[in-house]
C-alpha cells in the first residue's frame, strides 16, 4: 500500500502550528468562556465552540491533529458517555494525558469548545490523547474534522426518532463517513449489532485497499449446558428492537444467542452472512444486582491501530522522554496477535454496562493499555452523570437511573428486577418529561416492555410533564391500577417528596427519570438533604 507523506494529508498538519487563524479562534473561544462566566451563565459549553468555528472553520481539524497520541471518537445511541468516560479513566490512570469532552457536549461545537478549553492559546493541547463522545447525527462531521485514530461504534438502538430521523438514516450517514476514511483510522465495532456490521461491511482495508482497519468485539456467552446464563440470554427480540434484517440481503436474521435488544450472535439463514469473528470477546459475565459486574476479556488482538500504525511512532514526542518510559509506549510487536485474557470488576450494574465495559476495554487495548491498567481503571470507575447513582435521603436509599429510550429503559428494568419474573420488589418513581433534550415524542414508552412490572406489588409512582402517559402505559401493561400512583405533571418536587415519605425509613427506592426530569430531581434531592457531592466527580 503506498503510504502518502503524512504531513501532506488533510488532518495531519504539523501539531504546533495551527496558524494565526486558529490562535485567533482560540482567543475568541477563551473570551467567550470568560464573558459567559462573568455574566453568570457558567455552564454554556457550546458557545465558545461556535465562536472558534466561526473564526477558523478548520479549528476542529487543527486541534485534533495536535493530539500526538491520536484520538478516539465514541459513537452509539446508548452508553457512549459511560464508555468514553471509562476509556478516559483507564488512560488517565495509566499516565496518559487525556483531552475529553466530559460535559457530554457531543455536537461539533461542543467538541471544539472542549478541545479549545484544553489547549493553550497557540493550539497546543494539554494532553496527548483525545477521547471524544459524538452525538449520532454529529458523528460524520466530527469524524471528518477530527480524523480520529480510532472510532468506536458501540450500538445503534432506536432512539429519540423525532430528533435523529430514522435509524436507517443514521446508519447510512455513518456508512458514508466510514467510506471517507483511510488506513490512519481503525474502526472498533460491536459485532453483535448487525446494523453496525452493515455500516462497516466491505469498507475495511481488506476489501478496499487504503481503507481503515476494522476490529470486532462482542459477547461470548454459553448458550447451552451448565454455563448457560439466563440473566444474559433473551428468549425473543424485545418489542423495542428494530426488525433485525441481514445487512447484506435483507432477510430476517436468526440468532445463536440473543443478548440485548437486537444484539447477539446473529446469522442470516438466507445468504450465510453472520457475525464476524471477534477480535476481543467478553466471557464469564457476572451481574451483581444493582451494584456491580465482572467479566473476562479475551483478546486475540491487542494493540496498535491500523495497518500503518507504525508510522505514528515516528512522530516526535514532546513529552521529554516520558513517553518512552510509559508502559503505553507502542510495542514493536504491536501488529502481531497477542492473545490475552483478564478479568475486570466494574462498580456498575446491568448487562448494558458489560457491553460498555467491553467496548472501553477494546479501545484501551487499541491505545496500548495493558490488562492491569484496564482492570485498575475500571475498578475505581464512577458512573457518568446520572447514569446510575445511589444517594441517601432522609434515611432512605435512592437508586437513580437515567432512562432515555426503549432499549435503555428495558435494560434498566431488567437490571432492577434482577432478570427475575417477579417484577420490582421496591417502589419506583417514573418521571417522564418531553422537553427537547428528552425527545418531544413519548410514543417510545409503548415500545418498552413494562409488562415485566405487572408482577409484584410495589407501588409505581408516575410524575413529570408526561407522567400521565406513563401511568396509562403501566395500566395497559397489566399493572393493577391500585399500584399506580399518578402525581400532578407539573410538580416534580412535590411528587418526589410524596414518594419518599410514602416509603418507610431504611427502605430502598428506585427513581427512573428522563434527562430533564433527572436534572430537576437531582436538584430537589440536594434540597432534601442528599449528600451533594455524592454524584460529583
Amino acid at each position, binding site marked *: 500500500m503506498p503510504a502518502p507523506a503524512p504531513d501532506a494529508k488533510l488532518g495531519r498538519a504539523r501539531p504546533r502550528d495551527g496558524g494565526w487563524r486558529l490562535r485567533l479562534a482560540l482567543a475568541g473561544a477563551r473570551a467567550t468562556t470568560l464573558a459567559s462566566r462573568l455574566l453568570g451563565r457558567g455552564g454554556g459549553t457550546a458557545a465558545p465552540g461556535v465562536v472558534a468555528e466561526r473564526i477558523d472553520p478548520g479549528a476542529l481539524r487543527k486541534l485534533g491533529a495536535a493530539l500526538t497520541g491520536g484520538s478516539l471518537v465514541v459513537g452509539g445511541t446508548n452508553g457512549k458517555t459511560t464508555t468514553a468516560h471509562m476509556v478516559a479513566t483507564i488512560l488517565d490512570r495509566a499516565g496518559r494525558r487525556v483531552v475529553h469532552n466530559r460535559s457530554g457536549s457531543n455536537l461539533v461545537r461542543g467538541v471544539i469548545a472542549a478541545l479549545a478549553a484544553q489547549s493553550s492559546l497557540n493550539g497546543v493541547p494539554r494532553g496527548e490523547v483525545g477521547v471524544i463522545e459524538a452525538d449520532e447525527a454529529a458523528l460524520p462531521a466530527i469524524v471528518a474534522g477530527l480524523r480520529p485514530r480510532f472510532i468506536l461504534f458501540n450500538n445503534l438502538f432506536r432512539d429519540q426518532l423525532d430528533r435523529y430521523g430514522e435509524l436507517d438514516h443514521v446508519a447510512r450517514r455513518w456508512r458514508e463517513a466510514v467510506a471517507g476514511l483511510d488506513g490512519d483510522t481503525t474502526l472498533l465495532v460491536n459485532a453483535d449489532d448487525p446494523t453496525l456490521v452493515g455500516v462497516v461491511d466491505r469498507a475495511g482495508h481488506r476489501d478496499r485497499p487504503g481503507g481503515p482497519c476494522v476490529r470486532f468485539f462482542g459477547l461470548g456467552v454459553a448458550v447451552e449446558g451448565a454455563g448457560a446464563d439466563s440473566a444474559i440470554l433473551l428468549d425473543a427480540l424485545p418489542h423495542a428492537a428494530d426488525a433485525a434484517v441481514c445487512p447484506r440481503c435483507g432477510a430476517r436474521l436468526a440468532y445463536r444467542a440473543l443478548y440485548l435488544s437486537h444484539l447477539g450472535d446473529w446469522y442470516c439463514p438466507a445468504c450465510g452472512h453472520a457475525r464476524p469473528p471477534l477480535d476481543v470477546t467478553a466471557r464469564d459475565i457476572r451481574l451483581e444486582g444493582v451494584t456491580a459486574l465482572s467479566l473476562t476479556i479475551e483478546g486475540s488482538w491487542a494493540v496498535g491501530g491500523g495497518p500503518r500504525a507504525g508510522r505514528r511512532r515516528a512522530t516526535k514526542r514532546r513529552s521529554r522522554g516520558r513517553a518512552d518510559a510509559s508502559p503505553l509506549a507502542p510495542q514493536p510487536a504491536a501488529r502481531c496477535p497477542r492473545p490475552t485474557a483478564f478479568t475486570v470488576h466494574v462498580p456498575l450494574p446491568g448487562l448494558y454496562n458489560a457491553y460498555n465495559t467491553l467496548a472501553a476495554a477494546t479501545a484501551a487495548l487499541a491505545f496500548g493499555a495493558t490488562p492491569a491498567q484496564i482492570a485498575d481503571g475500571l475498578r475505581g470507575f464512577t458512573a457518568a452523570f446520572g447514569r446510575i447513582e445511589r444517594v441517601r435521603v432522609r434515611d432512605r436509599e435512592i437508586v437513580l437511573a437515567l432512562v432515555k429510550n426503549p432499549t435503555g429503559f428495558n435494560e434498566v428494568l431488567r437490571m432492577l428486577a434482577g432478570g427475575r419474573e417477579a417484577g420490582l420488589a421496591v417502589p419506583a418513581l417514573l418521571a417522564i418529561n418531553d422537553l427537547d433534550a428528552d425527545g418531544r415524542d413519548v410514543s417510545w414508552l*409503548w415500545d418498552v416492555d413494562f409488562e415485566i412490572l405487572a408482577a409484584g406489588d410495589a407501588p409505581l409512582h408516575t410524575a413529570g410533564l408526561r407522567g*400521565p402517559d406513563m401511568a396509562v402505559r403501566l395500566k395497559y401493561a397489566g399493572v393493577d391500577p391500585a399500584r399506580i400512583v399518578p402525581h400532578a*405533571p407539573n410538580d416534580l418536587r412535590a411528587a418526589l417528596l410524596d414518594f419518599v415519605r410514602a416509603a418507610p425509613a431504611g427502605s430502598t427506592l428506585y427513581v427512573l427519570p428522563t434527562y430533564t426530569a433527572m436534572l430537576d430531581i437531582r436538584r430537589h434531592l440536594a434540597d432534601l438533604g442528599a449528600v451533594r457531592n455524592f454524584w460529583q466527580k
Partner: protein
Amino acid sequence: MPHARPTLRIGYLYGVEMNIYGDRGNIIALSQRCRWRDIAVEIDLVGIGDPLRPAYHDLYFFGGGQDKEQIAVAADLAGDKGKILREAVEEGATALTICGGYQLFGHHYRPHNGPELPGIGIFDITSEAGPDRFIGNSVLELPDGELVGFENHSALTFLGPGCESLGRVVIGAGNNGRDGSGGAKYKHAYGSYLHGSLLPKNPWFADRLIVEALARRHGPVELAPLPDNLELAAHRRPPAQLTH
C-alpha cells in the same frame, strides 16, 4: 350484550415490519379494553409473505415503519392482500391505519427520490414527500370528540373526493399543513398521522372501533363503561404544554 361471549378478530398488518413510534400501543389498547369487558380477542400477526384470510377479520391495524420496510410492505400488498383488504373494507370491516400504513391505504406515496410506492387505494388520497418535517403534538377535532397524538411525518397527503377528512386540525399540521384536514375516513376505515400511541389516550375512539368492528358479526353491541380516569388525564393535557 349478546349472551354468547363475543370475539374480536384483529388482523395486525405487518406488525413486525411496521412497528415504529410505539404504534403497537394501539393493539395493546384494543385488546386490553376488550379483555377488561370479557370480550375475547384473537390477534393474527400478518407479515410479508403470510397469507391473509379473506373476510375473516373484524378489525385491521396497520402502523408506520421506516422507508426500507415500507417499500417491502408495499410490494407485498400489491398481490392478493391488497384486494382482500379492499373487499373487507367495502363489506364493513373496521380498519385503523397510522402514518405509513395510512399512506399505503391510499393510492400512492411519492418519495423525494426512488420509485413511487403504490398503495391499495382504499382511501382516495395521494401522498408525496414534502420539503419539511412536521413534528409535534397534534389535536384533531371530530364530530364526536377530540383525538390527541403526536405527528412526525414529512409527507404531504391530499384528499380526493372519494373520502372525507377524519377530523379538523386544531393543533399541528394534519395531512399537509395547508388545508386544515387531518387524516381520512372511508366507511369504517380510518387513517391519520397520529402516533402517541393514539388509542390508549383516546379511549372513546378505541371503544368506537371496537363497537363498529364487533357489529360486523355480532350486531349492535353495547360496551360496559370502564374507569378511564388515567386515560382521560393523559388525554386532557393543558394546551400550553401541547404547543411547547
